[in-house]
């Protein structure tokens, strides 16, 4: 991978608002935007940034998890011409890997460019989940696990899975220390989300998010045993889009390399969905993906300036910090509690709030992560902009589907 046959870039990213509880304009009792509106907004938001818009696009790809149940809609490639008529009669694909669908959309675009079947790919992700109450949404999201295990699972299936991980972590290490790290993770997410107007927690004004989370003892009678609501990402509607292009492609759409990010390398790993994790205190597929991507690129963790990682639950954030090698097993919580992952810390993570703060429109999240890294590395992150140093010029995304099942890690650098 150190020598890709072609250079690949991403640019012209766009995120809709992540809509759901927490946003002032969200009203579950009123009719709201559907898949169509989100796709149109994000798709056109990307196309408006490139020369000749959709005419410049060779093919499109869409990441989505569960439109078939949330929205009773399949055959999603058919929606691209609705975004722009110039996408009609061109190739389009949709990809699914649960909450890891977004990164599969990116990978599909990257591979098309590498295969030289396209120079400009419109890569998108979308999910509209507020169509059902959370208790029924939990059934739908549970499809990211093995259905044969669903009966044994919790009413809130995925919170249940990650609650078990948190429980195992508490038992193996130190519950109090772990909960402090998890509360700090939440506080960072809120602090960062308040800087991005598209974030679901942008309107959050709570004076003490850290204290709020720390004081909220998990209650298994109403929710799960080891997580509180602040430990969980919310139910979100949203779409994101980005352009994946070759050097020729960038020229075609009139975008300078420095306004794009170059893809340095990636790793995709999957873990057997029919098996429970051997060690619940480790995200093994994520850890393997990280090891692979560093090996393939020859880079090290000390060169990474910012990471967008998959914190569907705060404990997943802590475990990924450990998988990245920033802390030893059992010490990721301290690393976070000590402020190292804050926006002014050693390694700023999830700088627009991540899944907990920005939102988690499941099938769109992987694309949203890439858009955030593109914004940060090219100086387009607005109020959420962090400083990227020369020593740590690289950005990284880690997107996960299910319980550490479908994982993609990608490393980026500003184009030059």
């Amino acid at each position: 991978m150190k020598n890709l046959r072609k250079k690949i870039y991403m640019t012209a990213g766009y995120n809709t608002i992540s809509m759901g509880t927490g946003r002032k304009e969200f009203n579950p009792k009123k009719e709201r935007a559907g898949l169509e509106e989100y796709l149109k907004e994000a798709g056109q938001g990307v196309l408006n940034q490139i020369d000749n818009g959709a005419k410049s696009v060779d093919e499109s790809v869409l990441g989505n998890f569960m439109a078939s149940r949330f929205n009773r809609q399949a055959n999603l490639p058919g929606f691209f011409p609705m975004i722009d008529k110039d996408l009609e009669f061109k190739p389009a694909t949709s990809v699914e890997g649960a909450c890891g669908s977004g990164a599969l959309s990116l990978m599909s675009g990257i591979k098309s460019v590498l295969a030289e079947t396209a120079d400009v790919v419109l890569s998108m992700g979308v999910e509209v989940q507020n169509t059902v109450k959370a208790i029924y949404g939990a059934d739908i999201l549970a499809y990211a696990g093995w259905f044969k295990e669903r009966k044994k699972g919790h009413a809130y299936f995925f919170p249940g899975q990650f609650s078990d991980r948190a429980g195992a972590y508490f038992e193996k290490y130190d519950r109090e220390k772990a909960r402090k790290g998890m509360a700090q993770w939440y506080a960072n997410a809120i602090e960062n989300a308040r800087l991005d107007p598209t974030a679901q927690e942008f309107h959050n004004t709570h004076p003490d998010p850290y204290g709020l989370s720390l004081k909220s003892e998990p209650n298994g009678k109403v929710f799960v045993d080891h997580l509180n609501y602040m430990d969980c990402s919310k139910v979100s509607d949203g779409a994101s889009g980005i352009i994946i292009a070759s050097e020729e492609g960038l020229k075609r759409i009139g975008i300078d390399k420095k306004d794009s990010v170059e893809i340095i390398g990636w790793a995709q790993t999957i873990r057997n969905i029919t098996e429970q994790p051997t060690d619940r205190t480790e995200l093994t597929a994520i850890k393997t993906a990280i090891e692979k991507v560093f090996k393939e690129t020859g880079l090290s963790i000390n060169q990474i300036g910012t990471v967008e990682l998959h914190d569907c639950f705060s404990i997943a954030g802590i475990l990924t910090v450990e998988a990245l090698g920033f802390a030893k097993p059992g010490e990721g919580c301290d690393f976070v509690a000590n402020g190292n992952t804050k926006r002014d810390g050693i390694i700023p993570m999830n700088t627009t709030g991540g899944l907990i703060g920005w939102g988690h429109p499941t099938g769109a999240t992987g694309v949203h992560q890439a858009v955030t890294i593109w914004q940060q590395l090219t100086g387009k992150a607005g109020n959420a902009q962090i400083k990227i140093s020369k020593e740590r010029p690289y950005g990284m995304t880690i997107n996960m589907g299910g319980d550490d099942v479908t994982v993609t890690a990608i490393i980026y650098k500003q184009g030059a």
Partner: protein
Amino acid sequence: MTYDEKLQNVSVLGAAGKMGSGILLLTAVEMCKLSLKPENKGKTFVLNAIDLSDEGLAGLASYIKAQVRKIAEKQTVWLREMYEDRADLIENGEIIDQYIFDVTNIIRPTTAMEVAYRSQLIFEAVSENPDLKVKILSQIDKNNPNSPWYFTNTSSVPIHLIEEKANLKGRVLGFHFYNPPAVQKLVELITTSNTNPIMVDFAYAYSKGLGKIIVPSNDIAGFIGNGHFMRDGLYGINEAKALTNKYSWPEAVYMINKITQDYLVRPMGIFQLMDYVGIDVMQYILKVMNPYMPEENLHSEILDEFISLNIKGGQMSSGAQKDGFLKYEKGKAVAAFDPKSKNYVSFEIFSAKCDADLGEMPNGHLPWKTAVRHKNKENVFSSFFTNMKASVTLGSKIALKYGANANKIGLKLVSDKVAANTNDVNTVMLTGFFHAFGPVNNYFD
């Protein structure tokens, strides 16, 4: 007979009514909970929903279904455990649907009262008519070989009167839910000197199962809740009447309603509350109570006048408020009835003038919605009513007198031995009437 056995065959009389449907819902959910217990598998649980109205019973089914779904959605964690052995029920949605089926499957709607002859426990929620209650209960008791227990939902009829006239010998108690039973936490429990203590224990266990708070009240007509509300309402009517030397009746009603809602920080003004309960219901309850209160005259000519004009308030079957003292648009009061012209007079015509005459609201006022959830409620009210005492406006003066009178009514309920203590009075008004502060307090000294 165990708690579970006692709840295997139950009847609700007046099941399609507002109170009856709520009692039916809560009881069906409780019975279903028992039926799902492993030791009760295979046992049949029957809940007869008895009502005179076929139409009412038809509407009842959809009410129950919608309410059970709401309950199920909040208890899915527990439901998954209950249905653990049902391999065919995998998703929350499937389990919730099954639970709705299981709850509704217990309920047998019927217009035939004879089914109650087989019950162990009978809830009575027919209209507030002592003779009717006595007639129905004695008929059932003559034909039911089980010596069943009777829980009457009366809010005013003395229990010993029902007990004697229907010859129930210690097998009846007052179990007074507040409206709507599915939401309100409060139950007033009224026993007589004969009441079977085992039945009282059962009543406490049952209310615990339902998640209700019991406040015991002595068997004196009106009990605590109506004992307070009826007197408070009559006082409000008289205060309005007193204002009619300077104001028209609609203006007076508007002003007293505003004072009781805003100045006294209550969820609704007193005239709106009387409309909510129903002017006819109020007249009826007063009629039941009055003979037992020799020192008072619990009667209002104004209520009689409104009834004679067929202005009754109360609620439509949809739950929407019917017009009474006030006229409502989308649940909001917009006009007051003038018995002279027999028309509603819009607030718009006089509200500005009346508001100006009432004067400026004292500092520190919080609307009820905010106040009721405030962490330092006591401090907020203490400083607000201190400011009110320093204020010389007409609104403040009437409000202070009103608050002091509510306090007096509360104390009287204790001295009359209706309530055991002032704490019980306050609990009833806080939980049954959603007042933000109890009527017995020091704010109006």
